């Protein structure tokens, strides 16, 4: 029996098409790994073995038929518990949705089914996607496979840990302020947040509607491109889904990097919060790109220091609106014996939501309230445009922007939970990208004291194919992405 967890999704898919092995064998392999190893990680909230085996059998039949087989037919994946999956619990990491059996599939979920992929289960995450460490989950923290005392990052911590430990060959994440890229960096895997509007948000539980984007979390850039091909595309059911021709995100992977201009924002490297070893690993990666034919240019993003303050007004404001639907009336958690309507609302929400979610709802409510709207929300939207203008100017001088994904490597569980603002500063490099609606990805570029370091690649709108090209070429010349922790090997 092959050790399927040592194969990339692309390799598994090729093997399935050549009938070297079956989807059933591969799926059983990963279900066994989840059963024996996930106890240490807590990366899954719900494992779906019966559905997985049924989907695997259907995929094998489809492949045997020689019919409509896609690039990833029969390949298993783990699905962040923020995507609605019909008939399967969709908790969003919250007590509020602990018993919510989604009555419909998210478009992204439907896309995976149509492609004949096999869902292994729903992964753990920060509650309602609010967090940078997967410590706010109602279902307990996720542990980083590289050091079980440390966080995997968040909010897509479960997906990141599952892929890093190779108990799933690929997984989905969502990214509002860094929630795909930062856990990818802290866990040593590849993750991409597409351009806003590239991936449908229908059925993807909303946190901040102008910032949320779903995307792949994988071992390699090639796998991410293959997965993005399945996830992306216009969806009439999402009014913010862009109307564009469907594209093949793998089409530029093999291109050499000669002539590529890489921008390094000076503001990203001067800050005191940046661990010097992280900075060194990123500079080494930039040097590798130069060896591959790229040239470096210094750029400036002068308003980047305002991105966290702006985000922590915009995102909470949008979340306060989005989470007002959780009222104990139509679905989700309802408190016991409500004495009147106000009690029903206040206690269902008070008991159903955790502390971080409550904080963000309250900040958002305050920022949007009469008398404060101009000073906070409107100001934040103006700052947002300044940040976006900075990127536009920088992309006048380069093709992609490079920087660290996270200022530090994985921190200890409990280390930053006392002060919310300390936790917010983990997002310093990722947040501006969401505010501007740009695509961003993280790839492994080294280690600092035994913990993974992530390299962030930021592209122009809809330039994911080129970013994946840069990442893929880098991964042909380096092997950081192929490392995994010894105990999960």
């Amino acid at each position, binding site marked *: 029996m092959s050790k399927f967890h040592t194969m990339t999704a692309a390799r598994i898919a090729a093997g399935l098409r050549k009938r070297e092995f079956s989807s059933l064998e591969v799926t059983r392999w990963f279900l066994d790994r989840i059963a024996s190893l996930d106890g240490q990680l807590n990366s899954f909230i719900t494992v779906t073995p019966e559905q997985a085996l049924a989907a695997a059998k259907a995929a094998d039949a489809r492949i045997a038929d020689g019919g409509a087989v896609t690039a990833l037919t029969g390949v298993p994946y783990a699905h962040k518990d923020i995507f609605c999956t019909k008939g399967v619990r969709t908790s969003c990491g919250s007590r509020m949705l602990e018993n919510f059996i989604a009555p419909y599939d998210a478009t992204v979920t439907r896309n995976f089914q149509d492609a004949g992929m096999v869902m292994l289960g729903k992964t753990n995450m920060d509650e309602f996607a609010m967090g940078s460490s997967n410590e706010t989950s109602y279902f307990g923290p996720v542990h980083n496979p590289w050091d079980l005392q440390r966080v995997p990052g968040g909010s897509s911590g479960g997906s990141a840990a599952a892929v890093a430990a190779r108990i799933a060959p690929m997984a989905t994440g969502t990214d509002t302020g860094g929630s795909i890229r930062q856990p990818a960096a802290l866990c040593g895997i590849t993750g991409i947040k597409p351009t806003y509007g590239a991936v449908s948000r229908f059925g993807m539980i909303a946190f901040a509607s102008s910032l949320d984007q779903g995307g792949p979390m994988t071992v390699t850039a090639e796998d991410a491109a293959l997965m993005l091909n399945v996830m992306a595309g216009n969806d009439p059911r999402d009014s913010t889904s862009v109307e564009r021709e469907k594209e093949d995100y793998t089409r530029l992977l093999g291109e050499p990097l000669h002539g590529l201009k890489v921008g390094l924002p000076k503001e990203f490297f001067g800050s005191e919060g940046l661990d010097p070893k992280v900075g060194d690993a990123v500079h080494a990666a930039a040097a590798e790109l130069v060896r591959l034919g790229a040239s470096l240019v210094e750029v400036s993003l002068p308003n980047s220091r305002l991105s966290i*303050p702006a985000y922590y007004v915009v995102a909470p404001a949008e979340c306060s609106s989005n989470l007002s639907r959780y009222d104990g*009336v*139509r679905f989700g958690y309802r408190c016991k014996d409500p004495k009147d309507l*106000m009690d029903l609302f206040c206690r269902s*929400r008070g008991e159903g939501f955790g502390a971080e979610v409550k904080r963000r709802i309250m900040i958002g409510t305050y920022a949007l309230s009469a008398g404060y709207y101009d000073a906070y929300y409107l100001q934040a939207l103006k700052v947002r445009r300044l940040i976006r203008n900075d990127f536009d100017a920088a992309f006048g001088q380069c093709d992609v922007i490079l920087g660290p994904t996270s200022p530090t490597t994985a921190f200890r569980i409990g280390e930053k939970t006392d002060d919310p603002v300390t936790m917010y500063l983990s997002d310093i490099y990722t947040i501006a990208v969401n505010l501007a*609606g740009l695509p961003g990805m993280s790839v492994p570029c080294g280690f600092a004291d035994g913990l993974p370091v992530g390299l962030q690649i930021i592209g122009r709108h809809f330039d994911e194919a080129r970013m994946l090209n840069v990442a893929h070429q880098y991964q042909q010349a380096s092997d950081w992405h192929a490392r995994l922790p010894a105990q999960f090997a």
Partner: protein
Amino acid sequence: MSLSRRDVEKIAHLARLQITEEQIPGFATQLSNILAFVEQMNSARTDGVEPMAHPFDTPTRMREDVVTETNERELMQSIAPAVEAGLYLVPKVIE
């Protein structure tokens, strides 16, 4: 901006969030810290800058006013806390 107990109670009420007596001081401190932090934005010169609510300033997409969805009330209500005769049940609203 420093928030008082009264401010926190008012915000929690607007957001329909029950918080306990014991929790109020903690939230007041944390929310005040967050607001102090976001006030860094005030240093930005934003006169004449257009607010950006959407990354591409795209106006809302329109479609034909035709029925495209089927009524799936039974399915959608199968997960409700309390329903009767196709209606969601809540505590009495009007005395």
